[in-house]
């Protein structure tokens, strides 16, 4: 009797797994999204050397100016960064956004050459050569973008390049609404 119950074990395991997969598929969960624990919390420590020569290092104070800030991690070796770059240029020039750019695991000379070629939309630019600040910020790669309000609270975390839709539907309303 007991032994026969034992034969049911694989079947029960299969049913359990099938149930989990069905739930995963039907619950509308996006398995590609790893979410972000930062949203709604104070931004992690910002402490990086300046990317451009002769500028002071970037500190937390930049995130608590009372004005909303966009923090963008990028690298010259990253192709999606190239695709989203004109959107940041537009946000800086046309919409007057304050954008902090952090070159992540990127040789400063290369990041600067990249910015020189494409135009530099960053009011403050930092160099996170070792990726330590990226670690603090929960970065999974580049590009990633954070919307930080005037009190230094992270309001939105984009993993991957921002798009025209993100600009129109999220970023522009955020810049207008956040204090």
């Amino acid at each position, binding site marked *: 009797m007991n032994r026969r119950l034992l034969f049911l074990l694989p079947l029960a395991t299969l049913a359990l797994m099938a149930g989990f997969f069905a739930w995963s598929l039907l619950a509308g969960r996006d398995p590609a999204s790893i979410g972000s624990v930062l949203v709604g919390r104070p931004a992690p420590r910002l402490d990086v050397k300046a990317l451009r020569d002769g500028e002071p290092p970037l500190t937390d104070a930049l995130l608590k100016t009372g004005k909303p800030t966009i923090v963008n991690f990028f690298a010259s070796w990253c*192709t999606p960064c*190239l*695709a989203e*770059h*004109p*959107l940041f*240029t*537009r946000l800086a020039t046309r919409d007057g956004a304050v954008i902090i750019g952090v070159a992540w*695991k*990127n*040789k*400063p000379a290369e990041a600067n050459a990249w910015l020189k*070629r*494409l*135009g530099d939309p960053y009011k403050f630019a930092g160099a996170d*050569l*070792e*990726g330590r600040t990226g670690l603090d910020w929960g970065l999974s790669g580049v590009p990633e973008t954070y919307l930080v309000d005037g009190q230094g609270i992270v309001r939105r975390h984009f993993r991957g390049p921002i*798009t*025209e*839709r993100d*600009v*129109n539907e999220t970023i522009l309303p955020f810049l207008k609404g956040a204090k």
Partner: protein
Amino acid sequence: MLEFLLALLTTATVGALLVPLLRTTARRTERLDSALAIYRDQLAEIERTRADGTVSEAEAAAARLEVERRILNAANATKTAAPHDSSTLHRFLPPALALLIPLLALGIYLNVGRPGLPAAPFASRPAGEHPNPNEPITAERMLAEARARLAENPNDPEALAELGEALVLEADGTVTPDAVAALTRALAQRPDNPRAAYYLGLHEAQSGDSKAAVARWQALEAASPPDAPWLSMLRAEIARVARAAGMPVPPSATPSAPTGMPTPSRDQVEAMQSLDPAQRQEAIRGMVDGLDKRLKENPGDRAGWLRLANARRVLGENDKAADAYAKADALGTLDTRTLTDWAEAHVRQLKPGETPSPAAVTVLERLEKAEPRNALALFYLGAAAFAAGDKPGALRRWNTLLALLPADAPIRGLLEERIKAAEGK
């Protein structure tokens, strides 16, 4: 913590391997001892039975001898096996390996894997060669060219557009602020410059204004000649940007062949390949006739007439081809290349020795005017002049043609004969 556990695991494994390895030699002597003990017992047994009298003296001596022989054998077996099994290499290699491999792993780990080692990011490594040395060169060459032209004429719109395009290429397809500046200047002088309009639209699409981009590109599409080479790319871009921005895709941007040569679908092409040559020819003729019919309903389509003329000419229907060329020509003067095709369609209808028709002569004369050294025009206009009694005109053309022909041209003999005939009379 994990490192500690791994070290513990390795030590346990090495221990489990080493203990039996070191024991083998000991066990071998043990085996000999136990064998000897048995033989000793057997000898004692023989001695006892002999004393009892159950076994005769002679039998006991034979049994003892047998046991002694076995003892010698056993001792020999241990001795002969020992040098083979426990040669120094075999004795020491397994335990040495069991110890060396974990030690080597530990050494490598301490050298390159230990936490707290300084990072070795790309930046501090020596820069390698460029992975793709060809690509920057083309953009650089374009840049140099455009800048050289701008040095001569700083406001040349074509050079400004080229500079913008080169900057875009250099930035891997991103329209940079510098490129936008150059393209805007180009467009200010030549509002119809397609290159400047295209890249400014691309800039709008990239900087989050897809609506403006699509509007600009649709204006460019409308202003482009129907056979402009960039049209298909432009339509694909309009569709791509509109789709990415969630806008309705304009109907013109969906690829289709509104007029002109019917574009066969995949199925049609496959169906055609399964036909035999005669049937295939028939099917192609059917498609061309379909185009002809559509053009009769819509006779203002010049590009359509040109395609039809070309198709007819290729099919060998030279009279119909000539008619189609005439229709296209009426809608807009043909260029020299097409004029040549038209003239060819005319003269191919001629039988050998026949003089060209007046319609053919008109086309040939236009061709001769556009291209005075055109062999086709020279030969047939010479023939027409000869037939009309204009011998000097015929001789002039044929002599010019003779001078142009290569020495081994097959038509030389015929031409020389004709010239002789024109001169002789």
